[in-house]
C-alpha cells in the first residue's frame, strides 16, 4: 500500500505526526519539481510550503489512488501557476485529477522509485525523451515544443505517444520483476 495513502488517512484526522512523516517522505519530490520547473530555489521553497499547506488544509482534495502521483500533479500545477504569473504562457493544460482505471495500480506505483523512472527514461531514444521531459517540466504545449525544437508537429505527436507507451511498457516490466 502506498505509504502516502495511509498517512493521508491520518492527516484527515488532523494527525500532525502523520503530516510530518508525509513532509519528510515527499518534500524532496515537491521541492525538486519546483526547482526543475521554476529554476530558483527560493521559488521552489515557496512552492513546497504551498503544496504541503494544501495537503494539511484540504486533505479531502486527495481522493485516493497514488499519493505520489497526486502530490506531483499538485506541485506541477502550482509551478505552472507561478510561471503563468511571471509571463504569458502557452495554454497547455494538465489533466484534472481523475481516477485512473486499469493502469499501474497504487501498490505498483509505490514501488516505482526515481532510479527506475530514470532508467526507464534512458531506454527511450533521446528524441522521444527530450520532448517528453520538455513537455512535462516546461508547462508548454506540443505546438510550442515543436517550435522550440524545430520539429514538425506531427513528429512531435508521434514521438510523445511512442515515448509514453514505451515508458509505460518498461515500467510495467520492471515492477513485475
Amino acid at each position: 500500500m502506498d505509504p502516502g495513502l495511509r498517512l493521508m488517512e491520518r492527516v484527515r484526522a488532523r494527525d500532525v505526526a502523520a503530516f510530518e512523516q508525509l513532509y519528510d517522505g515527499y518534500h524532496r519530490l515537491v521541492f525538486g519539481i519546483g526547482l526543475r520547473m521554476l529554476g530558483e530555489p527560493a521559488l521552489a521553497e515557496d512552492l513546497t510550503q504551498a503544496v504541503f499547506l494544501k495537503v494539511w488544509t484540504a486533505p479531502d482534495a486527495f481522493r485516493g489512488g497514488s499519493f505520489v502521483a497526486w502530490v506531483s500533479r499538485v506541485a506541477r500545477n502550482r509551478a505552472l501557476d507561478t510561471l503563468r504569473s511571471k509571463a504569458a504562457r502557452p495554454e497547455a493544460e494538465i489533466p484534472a485529477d481523475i481516477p485512473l482505471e486499469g493502469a499501474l495500480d497504487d501498490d505498483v506505483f509505490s514501488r516505482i522509485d526515481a532510479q527506475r523512472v530514470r532508467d526507464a527514461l534512458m531506454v527511450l531514444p533521446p528524441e522521444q525523451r527530450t520532448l517528453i521531459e520538455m513537455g512535462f517540466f516546461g508547462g508548454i504545449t506540443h505546438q510550442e515544443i515543436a517550435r522550440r525544437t524545430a520539429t514538425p508537429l506531427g513528429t512531435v505527436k508521434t514521438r510523445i505517444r511512442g515515448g509514453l507507451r514505451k515508458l509505460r511498457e518498461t515500467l510495467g516490466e520492471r515492477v513485475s520483476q
Partner: protein
Amino acid sequence: MSVDLDREAMLENVALHALGVLPRAEIPAVEAFIARDPEARREYDDLRAAADTIAQVAIEPVDSTRSARMKERLLARVRDDAAAGTVARRRIGPNPALTWGMGLAAAAAVVFGIVSVIQDVGLRSDLAASQSRTAALQTQLAQSERVGASDRRTLTDLIAPDAKRYEVANGAVVVRGGHVYFAFSKLPALPRGRVYQAWTIAKGAKTPAPSVTFTPNADGVAVVALPAEAGKLAAVAVSVEPDGGSKAPTTKPTFVRPLT
C-alpha cells in the same frame, strides 16, 4: 481509411493530453473521445500513469538548513491549526497567508456571523441589530486567543457596517478597506475533480486573471479572501474549473459582479 487516420490522430492527442501538453481548446474533443471509446480510455489511463511517474526524476536533495527551515515554518502553522481546529477547509490559493485557523467557539460564531451577513444583504434597515451582532461577535472573537490577526481582520471586514456588499448567487461579494471577500452559503457541492475558482478583472483589462480556488464546507459555506486590491478591480467572477484551477475560465461563470 480516413476514419482510421482520424482515429489515429485522436489517439495521438490522447497521449498529448496524458502528458499535459494539449492546448486547452482541444481538450473537450479529446475528453469526449476518451469518454466514448474504451480503447482510448485504456490508452489514456496507461499513458497518464506513465506520465505521472516522470515527476520522480525531479527528486532533489534539499540542504539540511533549507529543509529544517521549511519544516519548521510548516509545522508551526500546522500545529496552530491542529490546536485550533478548523471551520471549513479551504483550498490554498496563491496567497497561503490567508488560510483560516481558529478556535471552535469562535468558529461557530464566525460561521453564524457569515450566514447572518449573507442573509442581511439588502437589509440595511436592520443596522441596529447588525451592529449588536457585530459587537457580540467581536467580543467572542476577542476572547479567543487562537484567532490570528489576519482571520480577525477578515471577520471584522465581513461584518463591518461600512463594508460594501454586492449580492451574488448564493452569497455576497464584500469589499472593505481595499480587501475583497466572497462569502457564500449553500454553495452547491461540486463533483470530484472540480473546484470553484475566483477571477479578477482589473480596471481597463479585457480578460480575467486567475485567482484562488476554493470549495465550500459540508454546509455549503465558503469564505474566501481574494489576494487583490479592491481599488484596482473592475469586477470579480467565479466559475467551476478542474482541480488545481485554470488560467482562463473554461466554463460559463456562475456570476460576474462589477464592483461599482
